[in-house]
């Protein structure tokens, strides 16, 4: 039964003479393929702070915290790396053309301190001018205004945010309409205050 042995011997000789199959990690760094699903990274310019990624995450690895300090209102979104399963649902659900949070090819994520394994992003928050509760992030309101075009002018919240960001509206214009009792309707309001100011004529 010599013949089968020659077949295996040729493979053994070939394996002996060629270089090892394994790579030289960790002497040489490992570069995964460009498709590899690694750590999600937030993009400060593109992210609008809409919380869609938080809603859709299957393992609840994204949380947010709203700071309603009137001097510096901020929304902080936190992505917990130790819970993430790298599925890509957040990237697929992102409304800013899938660019607000994107999966990079970073794979070396081991840590010693569990509290430090987070990715955060801070977005400026827009507060209601009457009650002080958060409405949405400023970038999110601008995104909606751009998306619905001329329909923006149906809601003072939307058009005032947009025009303020363009620098067209300032305090002079708003104070001129301040004394007729309906001035609350031309302010940036949260949904509850807007309903109350439309339905009743008294100001708070």
């Amino acid at each position, binding site marked *: 039964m010599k013949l089968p042995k020659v077949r295996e011997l040729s493979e053994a000789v070939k394996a002996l003479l060629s270089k090892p199959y394994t790579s030289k990690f960790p002497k040489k760094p490992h570069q995964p393929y460009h*498709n590899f699903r690694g750590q999600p990274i937030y993009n400060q310019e593109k992210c609008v702070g809409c919380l869609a990624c938080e809603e859709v995450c299957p393992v609840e690895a994204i949380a947010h915290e709203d700071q309603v300090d009137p001097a510096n209102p901020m929304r902080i979104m936190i992505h917990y790396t130790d819970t993430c399963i790298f599925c890509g649902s957040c990237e697929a659900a992102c409304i800013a053309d899938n660019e607000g949070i994107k999966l990079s090819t970073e794979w070396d994520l081991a840590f010693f301190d569990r509290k430090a394994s987070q990715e955060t992003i801070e977005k400026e928050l827009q507060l209601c001018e009457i009650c002080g509760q958060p409405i949405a992030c400023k970038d999110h309101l601008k995104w909606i205004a751009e998306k619905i075009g001329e329909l923006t002018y149906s809601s003072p919240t939307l058009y005032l945010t947009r025009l303020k960001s363009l620098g067209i509206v300032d305090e002079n214009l708003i104070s001129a309409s301040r004394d007729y009792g309906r001035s609350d309707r031309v302010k940036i309001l949260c949904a509850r205050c807007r309903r109350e100011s439309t339905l009743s004529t008294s100001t708070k």
Partner: protein
Amino acid sequence: MAKSVIPIGPYHPLQEEPEFFTLTVDGETVVDIDVNIGYNHRGIEKLSELKTFDQSTFVIERICGICSTSHPFAYTRAVEDIIPVEVPERAKYIRTTIAEGERVHSHLLWLGLAGHFLGYNTVYMWVWKLREEILDVMEILSGNRNNYAIFKPGGVRRDFNPDDIPLALRKIDSIVPTLNKLKKAIIDDPVLHARLKGIGILTREDALDYCALGPTSRASGVAKDVRKDAPYGAYDQVDWDMIVTQNGDVFEKVVVRVLEVFESIKIMKQCLMNLPPGEIDLNIKNIPPGEGIGAHEAPRGETFHYVRSDGTNRPARHKVRAPTFMNLPTCKSTVIGETISDATIILASVDPCYCCTERMAVRTSEGKRIYGGQDLIRLSQEKTQRIRRKMGIK
């Protein structure tokens, strides 16, 4: 026939997996075997009811690491069967490619383990080296070596980049010559013939009575395969054969799996070269109330999912049935009457995916001597060496 009892496992520090083997033996022959499972039960059916249909796919993917495509495939087909609706053509081809890639890597994994149980450690190392090429192909196409996150009720999540496909095809072609050599080496080897032929025979009547599935039953002459009987995906548009043999012993099961690897490679190449253009997702918005059933031919047999929806965005009931659930009880008819040294390879020839079936531990009500998993593997390797010495091959 020592009367001392040596229990080893299931939570012993020296074991690789939680296994608790106990067989009732009389001399060298096994007289009774009993199967006791439940060490890895994670309550996935109850967990599915807390997640939405889309999020549930990720839980289902992690039922098993080796068959990480079979369960989402069957689940998405079940959800689409509630409505019922057909996914776009390009999505079907993408799903088929990933499913066949998984079949190749699963069969190669099993082949390596079978070599390890028999004492052929070289086969173990070489086959797992070939398997690395397939895992690289899966990383190029889907982003990860296991847990591909590519299935979604209504289509697929990610598209294949046309620039990656030539590299994937080159990698697949690079393993075919070595696999051919391996196939000839296995089918001609006299030690394997002496070791594996005629043991662990599962007759055709028993295969039908236990409702066995997959290569376990195809080796016994039962010509059933979900891909041919109820075609789905791209299986009816590519050209491939079903492998069926007649004898039902362990050798035939090895042969069926090795030949299936070649068929899967054929399907993968055809799908990658003929990807139709178009949409990849139907964007299903809501699932009406109803029931749906989805089945897929996993590497081990037919995976069966039953989903009931009550109109909300969460499943009301999700039943998962892995193929090993129907294949494992067949060990009662294949192991009884064989020697202890053959017990490991017969139990392994069913290709038990413990994670899919909530783990397996073998226990009898009264055992005369108790062997652990490591002991059984050692006995099996010693028998191969005895056969080698008898045939004059060193």
